[in-house]
């Protein structure tokens, strides 16, 4: 059993033992039960916000969907509470799917603003629908019962809540450590990278969104039967803000941060509601003052929340063991000649012609360099080939098929892999996990098999492949550390390893030598040569002339968006147009 699961087991035993300890007062057991309910919502937010990069202020609305669904069915329609759990989940999932289809498409700060908008709207909607009691809500929700025993007290209800919370934590841990989970973890700081190895980022975003909502919906179901009443006030924007505060306080990137944050905020709120009215001499909801200041102070001083501080007291999870496994399927190198053909590619931005009818070819087993002074259109050309930018005119043909206009994830399916000029690794993930994302298209495990850990054989194959590629680029001894701790040179190598996991025919390198030290450049050049000797074709954009001249078979020179020269390194070096483009004309 890995350390992660030892930790989980200890945590589970401690939390489940609480109600059995007689000297813990009922009051605290009940409070911890509420912490559990909130933890579920916060856990969803950790995934959505901290891991997936989508900040939601509206999560309380999904708690509302879950709570109202069961409250309505178990009062007006006389359903027994247990089957309504499935209905609560279904209602929340459908609602989240519909809302999510719009929400995950929102860019940047529009996304949290959108969640504020629907967060408020649902509060007013709940408060105005007569069949769910409008602002009075639904009273007299029946309690849960097990084997005929009604769970009326906090002490009795507590185990139900915490068994569910612990199950959710276990499933979430599994999910994060799966093929889909790694794609989700890459959304926040490496969405473009995930896309470049074939991850459909919209599906991944929607999956997290629905998952987070369903956790909130389950929390709502628990809430309804624990509180025995449902009113819209509990599902408004302020509640949504409180849930987000929990995620931020705990540490928005960590599963246990959700529990910690929910604990801190719930208990603090309880204390503040007792004490602040004494301080101010009148009744009222003053905890907002403290919460507001706490939120701002955390953003200014400790943006990672409290969990990382606490986690540093525990031993770190051990390194993943790489087990022998059947290798992933491997297809042969491409022999089509030319392999890649760029035909009169043109890109204009407004009136500016960034790429002006540029044509060139990459032949099998060849290293082609794309060079030119600053602003020559190299990066734009590169983006046209990888599908990041759409062509204004012209064609990109790969292995005799046009790939013009394909999105990056589709280009990746043709076995074209790339690296990025500004390295896109997820700094908090291990190097190995980052590289493993590269094998996305060569594997199949889905959301549920990841969550239920049914994917372990395939996982072993993925990691043995990732380890093999890391070995190939010379990073075998660094694979278990966080990617953020690598030097820039190592990060570039890790990106190449990730690209290699795609089993590419053509490798595109965007300024691979930028910022590297001399020795690192040598190593990189040797690696690229080895790859070529293994039959891979390489197209690289680079401005380090030494590097390009030494490494490439063929060079294409751009200036002001147009191709001004093409040929062998020797030819290009002596071309007067190239000399002028680089050194400037004699005045």
């Amino acid at each position: 059993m890995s350390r992660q699961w030892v930790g989980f087991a200890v945590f589970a035993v401690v939390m489940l033992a609480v109600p059995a300890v007689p000297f813990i007062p009922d009051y605290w057991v009940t409070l911890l039960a509420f912490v559990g309910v909130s933890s579920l919502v916060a856990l969803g937010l950790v995934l959505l916000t901290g891991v997936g990069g989508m900040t939601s202020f509206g999560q309380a609305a999904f708690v509302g969907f879950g709570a109202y669904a069961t409250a309505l069915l178990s009062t007006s329609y006389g359903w027994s509470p247990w089957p309504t759990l499935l209905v609560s989940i279904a209602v929340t999932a459908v609602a989240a799917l519909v809302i999510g289809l719009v929400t995950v498409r929102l860019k940047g700060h529009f996304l949290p603003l959108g969640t504020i908008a629907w967060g408020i709207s649902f509060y007013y909607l709940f408060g105005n629908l007569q069949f769910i009691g409008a602002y009075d809500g639904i009273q007299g929700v029946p309690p849960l019962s097990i084997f005929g025993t009604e769970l009326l007290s906090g002490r009795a209800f507590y185990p139900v809540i915490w068994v569910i919370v612990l199950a959710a934590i276990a499933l979430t841990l599994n999910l994060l450590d799966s093929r889909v989970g790694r794609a989700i973890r890459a959304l926040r700081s490496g969405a473009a990278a995930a896309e470049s190895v074939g991850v459909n980022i919209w599906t991944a975003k929607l999956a997290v969104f629905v998952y987070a909502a369903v956790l909130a919906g389950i929390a709502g179901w628990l809430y309804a039967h624990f509180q025995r009443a449902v009113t819209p006030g509990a599902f408004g924007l302020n509640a949504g803000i409180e849930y987000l505060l929990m995620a931020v306080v705990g540490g928005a990137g960590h599963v246990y941060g959700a529990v910690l944050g929910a604990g801190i905020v719930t208990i603090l709120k309880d204390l503040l509601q007792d004490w602040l009215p004494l301080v101010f001499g009148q009744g009222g909801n003053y905890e907002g003052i403290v919460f507001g200041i706490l939120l701002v102070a955390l953003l200014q001083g400790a943006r990672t929340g409290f969990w990382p501080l606490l986690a540093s007291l525990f031993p770190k999870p051990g390194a993943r063991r790489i087990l022998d496994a059947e290798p992933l399927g491997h297809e042969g190198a491409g022999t089509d000649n030319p392999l890649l053909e760029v035909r009169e590619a043109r890109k204009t931005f407004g009136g500016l012609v960034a790429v002006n009818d540029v044509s060139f070819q990459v032949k099998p087993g060849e290293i082609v360099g794309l060079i030119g002074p600053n602003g020559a259109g190299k990066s734009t050309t590169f983006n046209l080939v990888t599908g990041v930018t759409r062509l204004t005119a012209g064609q990109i043909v790969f292995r005799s098929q046009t790939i013009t206009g394909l999105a990056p994830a589709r280009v990746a399916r043709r076995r074209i892999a790339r690296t990025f000029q500004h390295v896109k690794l997820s700094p908090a993930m291990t190097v190995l996990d980052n590289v493993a994302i590269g094998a996305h298209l060569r594997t199949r495990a889905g959301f549920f098999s990841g969550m239920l850990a049914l994917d372990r054989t395939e996982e072993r194959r993925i990691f043995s492949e990732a380890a093999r590629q890391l070995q190939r680029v010379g990073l075998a001894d660094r694979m278990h550390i966080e990617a953020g701790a690598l030097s820039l040179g190592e990060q570039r190598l890790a990106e190449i390893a990730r690209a290699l996991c795609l089993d590419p025919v053509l490798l595109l390198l965007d300024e691979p030598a930028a910022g590297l030290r001399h020795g690192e450049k040598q190593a990189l050049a040797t690696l690229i040569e080895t790859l070529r000797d293994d039959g891979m074709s390489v197209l690289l954009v680079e401005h380090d002339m030494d590097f390009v001249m030494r490494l490439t078979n063929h060079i294409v020179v751009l200036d002001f968006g147009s191709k001004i020269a093409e040929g062998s390194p020797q030819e290009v070096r002596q071309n007067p147009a190239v000399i002028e483009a680089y050194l400037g004309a004699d005045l």
Partner: protein
Amino acid sequence: MSALLEVADLRVAYGQVEAVQGVSLSVEPGTIATVIGANGAGKTTLLAAIMGLLPAKGGVHFEGEDLAYVPAEERVARGISLVPEQRDLFATMSVQENLELGAFRRGRAEIPQRLEEVYALFPRLKERRRQHAGTLSGGERQMLAMGRALMARPRLLMLDEPSLGLAPLIVRDILKTVSQLRDTGVSILLVEQNARAALAVADTAYVMELGAITLSGPASTIAADPKVSEIYLGGGH
């Protein structure tokens, strides 16, 4: 200390990468110093650090005073102006408004006279004064960026790649203006990728490679050094 600007062992790091690795240089009053080097050598970072736009380690002294705790806005008031590589114009404001803002730290009263002087230097800007800066051509933008910097009446003008993206004839005009400015007493720190053009106007030159100065001396000596062309086009070793 006689130099107007004295930079000693300046270091700038982006995360783990040190883009400027211990650069020392000085600009004497009334001269043009140029820093040349290939793309990615760290030249732009160097200027941004001297301007105070990036956190840096090491010493920057201007007119003998340490600028360590002086923010960029204050450095403008002290007499350092930067014409950045991106120009950073106010695109949806008129040419004249851009210029007026150049004199923000000097106050309203000085604006009319400074405007006259800048328009005299760049008559083209006067013709276009009501036009939005965003509608100007590349050469005109460069003039506007320089004009805006001159509105602050700097004693040190720092130019970052003024030739970038401009046709050779315009580059020549711009550099002619730069030497005119030197003759009126403004000292200039010129960062250029276009080595030949920069060396033709400069008094002193520094060659920058991978974040460090690898060669320095009088501009004419540097211009004759065969190593310069090697740095740009690769040594072929």
